[in-house]
Each structure stands twice: as structure tokens, then as C-alpha cells.
């Protein structure tokens, strides 16, 4: 069973690498932030699989933190901290 999880993790990390092409290509800033979002979700999935493969439930907390910061990164991308006043 772990063998299949390893294969799935390998596939996901390869998709991650492919998704990076979009960062390279762009063309807009929004595309690149989307690429971060996809990479983030893929990383979360890999972490979930790894938590089974190496039997390390603590990796679930790492996944939790990534999920929480995914939204913060998006909001940092659209919000301007520069004051209007």
C-alpha cells in the first residue's frame, strides 16, 4: 500500500515541477500567483501522503500551516499595504 502512496507522491512532485513552467512563462503576475496556489495545494497533498509513508503525523500540522498561509499569500498579493492617507 505504501508503494502506491510513494508512486502518487512521485507523480505529484513531477506535476509540481511541470506547474513551475507557468511561473517561468507568466505572462501576468496573476498567473504566477496561481502557480503558487497550485504548488501549495500539491505540496499539501504530498505532505498528506508523506505522513502515511514515513508514519509521521506531525506532517499534518505542516500541511495545516501551508493551507492557512495560502490565503494570506493571496491577500498579500492583492492588498496594498501602502496607506491611502
Amino acid at each position, binding site marked *: 500500500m505504501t508503494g502506491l502512496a510513494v508512486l502518487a507522491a*512521485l507523480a505529484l512532485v513531477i506535476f509540481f515541477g511541470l506547474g*513551475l513552467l507557468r511561473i517561468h512563462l507568466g505572462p501576468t503576475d496573476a498567473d504566477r500567483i496561481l502557480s503558487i496556489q497550485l504548488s501549495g495545494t500539491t505540496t499539501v497533498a504530498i505532505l498528506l501522503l508523506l505522513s502515511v509513508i514515513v508514519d509521521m503525523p506531525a506532517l499534518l500540522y505542516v500541511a495545516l500551516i501551508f493551507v492557512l498561509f495560502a490565503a494570506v499569500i493571496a491577500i498579500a*498579493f492583492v*492588498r*496594498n499595504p*501602502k496607506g491611502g492617507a
Partner: protein
Amino acid sequence: MILFDGVLALLIVVLAWRCVTAGDLYLGIVVFIVMGLMLALSWARLDAPDLALAEAAIGAGLLGVLLLSTWRALPGHRRQDRDHPPARKAVRWLAGVASVAFGLVMAALLHALQPDEDAAGALALGRLTEAGVEQPVTAVLLNFRSYDTLLEMGVLLMALIGALLARTPLAPYGAATDDGTDSPLIPVLATTFTPLLLLVGAFLVWAGAYGPGGAFQGGAVLGGAGVVLVLCNRLQGAPEAGILLRLLLVLGVKVFILAGLLMLPLEGAFMAYPPGLTYPIMIAIEFCLATSIAVSLLLLFTGTHGVRVPER
């Protein structure tokens, strides 16, 4: 699994290369954040969940947010203004090649290093029961090598003071705005994600006693909650720091030193805790450290001396 590790390592090297040689500031930031994701995965593969947590919270999370916000605050971050790359191509490639060379030298040196069998690690693990907490990393950080952690807190405080002196604030005491994208979801984000970040942050600090987690990881997540509030306009930078904020800033260092001094007459050594009280003292210290770390990171984000609630 070796294939997975290989792809992971390859991706990290490629990302690091792109991060240094990126012609565009924004591209460099994006690559840096994605590299943080990969680094967290590699820490997970190296059996170091503590570092994976730290990388997730600080490296990819908070630092990414800080860099993105800094980029947004730069004049001319829009695409059409970006004709001038930040550095000449030759400089960027030189930086890349120098980084690779440095990495290779470090790798060779570290590889040649033979770990000492009777090193401190084995000694510390053997006496873990005396440390008061089950988690070896926390035991080392807060008990066996507490001087290091105390000085690290001092370094963080110094960094904050230096940053406040050196730079003009990102938000010149004004509120966060976004040009034309004032989404109705922004308040939703503030009200749902802030409590969650606070909860997870506090949990991580607590979890540091018996599993992966600890003051630095938890503090970074707590600081992230503050950053969300600033970005959602529930908090804003202020030119003056209130007395409460100052107290919170130095709380970690103060309580750490105080705990060390108070036990001096009892145990005869600075920072030696009496056996029965070790656990509660360390938990208290850990929460104080996390609070100070969170406030320091928040102020590093706003770049101001204080924060206040904006008037409505």
C-alpha cells in the same frame, strides 16, 4: 522513494538557481515562495518535522507575505514599469555561480566532517527525562542550551530595532488599501482566518512540549494572524508604541532572564530549574517567547513602532 528524493533535490536546485538569476523582482519572490514549499518537503523527508514546520510558517508563509507586500509597496511594481531589471545579467549570473560554488564547498566540507560518537547529542538524549519535556528539540532549546535561545531572542529584538531605525514604514500610518479590488470576502477572511491562525499558533507552542512545534513556529503563525489583520484593515501601523506593546515585545527576554535569576538561589546556577517545576516553567517561558516573537514579526511587517486599531 529515492526517485522522489531525487526529483525533490533537483527541483530545489533549479528553483534556487532561478531565484537568484530571475530578471524580475516579482519573479524572484514567487520562485522563493515555491522554493519554501519544496524545502519544507525536504525537511519532512529528512525526518525533521520541526524544521518543516518552521520553514512552512516562516520561510514560505510569513517571509513570502512580507516580500510580496514589500513588492506591492514599491513604486512602479506594475508590469509596464518593469523595463529595468534589478541588476545586470552578468551580476546575476555571477551571484548564481558564486552561490553554487559556495554550496559545493559547504557540501564537501560537511561531507568530510565525521560526527563525534560521544557528542553532546547522545548525552542530551540520555538525560532527556530531566529536561521536563518529552520533545528533544524543545528540551535543547529551552533547557540544555537555553543561553542560545535567550541570545536568539535578543538578536530578534535587535533586528526589529535596526529595521525600525533603518527603514521607512511600508504603511505610512495609513490603512491597507487595494486598488479597485475591495472584495466583500476580505472581512470574511479576517473573521475566519485570524481565529484559526491564533488557535493553530497557540497549539503549536503548546505542542512543542511533547511533539514537533515550539515557540518559533507557533510565534510565526501568531504573527501571521496579526499580518492578516493588518492586510484586512483591522489593524494599522502607528508611529508610537503603547506601553502594553512594548511590554509584550520584551516579555520573552524578560521572563526568560527572570526565571533564570529567580531560581539562582535555589539551584545555585543561572537557568537551572528545580526538578519538579521544570515543566510549568518551560511552558510559561515558551508562551512568553512566542508572544514576543509574534509581536516582533508583526512590527517587522508593518515597519512601524506600534500598531493600533483604525478608527471607523
